[in-house]
């Protein structure tokens, strides 16, 4: 098996400070230029045939990368199987839609509120359920994801099945406009959020919370014996993941200007989980790669539109069989050994 991750890590470690920063800046600049890639002949292969390429970059690609990074904290870092991540996305989106249409708050003011709402939901759900063993957590979160959707569907006060239309776009900052025909603005916002999350996860990983999560993931019993307050760190992991989902939701609502319950189905949770596992649980670069591929592929192959979910399922099975640890797995020594006893 080709070990791309180790090759990349070795290369990175052999570089000096200047080389590293140049690489990061060039990489960010290149990614920032992505919305224009459709205009040049040599990069126009990236164009998506049916949906607007710039819109695809924001949703699903950017959003999925952001949410997959958030879910990676929960599933990849601390080993808690969450099958209802879409709930936090929905809570963020609905917060943005309700506050955006009923109050004068703009998107940037709503963003922290949406994140707080999702975080609060995460704590509320986490407090009783994070004491449970993994598989029960999975089914409870799955149920929670469906509940949020069903509550939205059956509450006429928040639009019921039709949802909430006319969610305002964010006001412009630094001269960048945000509207349906200026998708690159949204892409850059999502990119900034992604970079922030990457930075945060990298800091966490080398500090106390990251070590606690790692201990919890590898062996809960041992972690308790070592004095790790596991419930507290699980709730932290859960609510940080939730807040990132909420942030994605707020941006999503103000980008699509409309939310409806049928946007937040179980399939979204599954897709984001697939992104995490497909790319390589616990490794942020793997997760980003996985999310990019899984979000972009169905749009790129839209010409076989009827069969694209079918092909997607097929590729999940094939890739998991060929590379069970994902495309870019985490370091071997971190891997959970003997998961099943």
């Amino acid at each position, binding site marked *: 098996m080709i070990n791309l991750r180790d090759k990349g890590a070795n290369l990175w470690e052999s570089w000096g400070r200047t080389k590293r920063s140049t690489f990061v800046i060039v990489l960010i600049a290149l990614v920032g230029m992505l919305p224009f890639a459709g205009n040049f002949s040599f990069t126009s292969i990236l164009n998506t045939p049916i949906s607007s390429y710039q819109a695809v970059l924001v949703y699903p690609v950017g959003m999925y990368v952001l949410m997959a990074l958030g879910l990676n904290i929960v599933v990849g870092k601390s080993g808690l199987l969450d099958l209802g991540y879409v709930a936090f996305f929905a809570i963020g989106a609905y917060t943005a839609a309700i506050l955006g249409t009923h109050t004068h708050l703009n998107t940037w003011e709503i963003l922290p509120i949406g994140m707080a709402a999702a975080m609060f939901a995460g704590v509320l759900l986490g407090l009783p359920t994070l004491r449970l063993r993994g598989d*029960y957590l*999975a089914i409870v979160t799955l149920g929670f994801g469906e509940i949020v959707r069903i509550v939205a569907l059956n509450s006429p006060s928040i639009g019921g099945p039709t949802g909430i239309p006319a969610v305002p776009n964010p006001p412009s900052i630094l001269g960048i406009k945000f509207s349906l025909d200026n998708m690159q603005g949204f892409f850059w916002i999502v990119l900034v959020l992604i970079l922030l999350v990457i930075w945060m996860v990298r800091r966490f990983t080398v500090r106390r919370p990251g070590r606690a999560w790692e201990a919890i993931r590898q062996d809960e019993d041992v972690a308790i014996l070592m004095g790790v307050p596991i419930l507290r760190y699980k709730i932290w992991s859960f609510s940080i993941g939730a807040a990132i989902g909420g942030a994605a939701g707020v941006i999503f609502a103000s980008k699509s200007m409309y939310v409806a319950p049928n946007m937040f189905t179980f399939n979204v949770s599954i897709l984001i989980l697939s992104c995490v596992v497909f790319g390589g649980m616990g490794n942020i670069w793997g997760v980003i790669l996985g999310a990019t591929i899984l979000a972009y592929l169905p749009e790129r192959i839209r010409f076989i539109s009827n069969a694209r979910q079918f092909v997607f399922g097929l590729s999940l099975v094939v890739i998991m069989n060929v590379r*069970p640890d994902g495309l870019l797995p985490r370091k071997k020594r971190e891997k959970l050994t003997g998961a099943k006893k």
Partner: protein
Amino acid sequence: MNLSVVVSQFWPLLINGIALGFIYVLISLGYTMVYGVLRLINFANSEIFMVGTFATVIVSRNIFGYSLNTEPIHGFKLIYTLVACLVASMLISGVTAVIVELIAYRRLRSKGTNRLASLISAIGTSLILSEGVRILTKSVPYASPRLLTKFNVLTFGKVGIRIDTVMVIVAGALIFFLVDRFVTKTLLGKAIRAVSMSEENSRLMGINLNRVISATFLIGGLVTGAAAFLYVTVYEVTVFNVGFNLGLAAFTAAVLGGIGNLRGAFYGGLALGLFEEFASVVFGGQWKAVLVFVVLVLVLLLKPNGLFGEAVQQTRV
């Protein structure tokens, strides 16, 4: 809130709830048995159910040539048609389950990989099945011809208990009894229980692990197929995503009773069926799923191993 209905229609609600519960029992056996041996949520089980419903409809429509406006049939002809549909549904579901195991689980298991990888490949298989059927049927619901005259066996005031409800209860109880006997009495059943206790030790005892796991999937598939047949007989229509909600409910039932535990699935399924039936008249059908979830959370908080205790040791993701 509509409590008067509960009082006035107590008996019909009770019996319909039991019938729904038996469908859940049979589907949740598919989840609970696989969970017992592999410690994995078999995500594809809902699609195995879906394949079974289509098998039932297609056998009665295309092989026996009944159309939607055929008059109900009687006597011996009725019995052998129903049995043929049942057998076809069970066989096709069983074979699908074995193939799912071969494709989604076996290779990954032989590599000794983490559980989430298997979960994703199961999700992939589930997508392949449901999307495959969606493309083949063009998302059109398939209605089943009404072969069984649906007369009332019992009546309570204005509401009657129909023959198909009774059939579901009788058949469900019988199938559950057979599976339970099979797992407790036969050698293969013993092997399945041994594997669910400890994979390594059972291998040391000379049990062919792959064979036992295939057999578990086969039995789970057969039972799920039977559930699919009963479902079609009662509701007379199926569509490519029919399995999703039923699968979710059945999995909840399995957890409710204590996953990995066959009798737990029995009680969990019945409890859930009854609860759904009563709760949907009291609070309105659209809140059914929310109530089921609330009950699940409460049960897990008060009795974390399910109502009847699970048959597995502590595992982790």
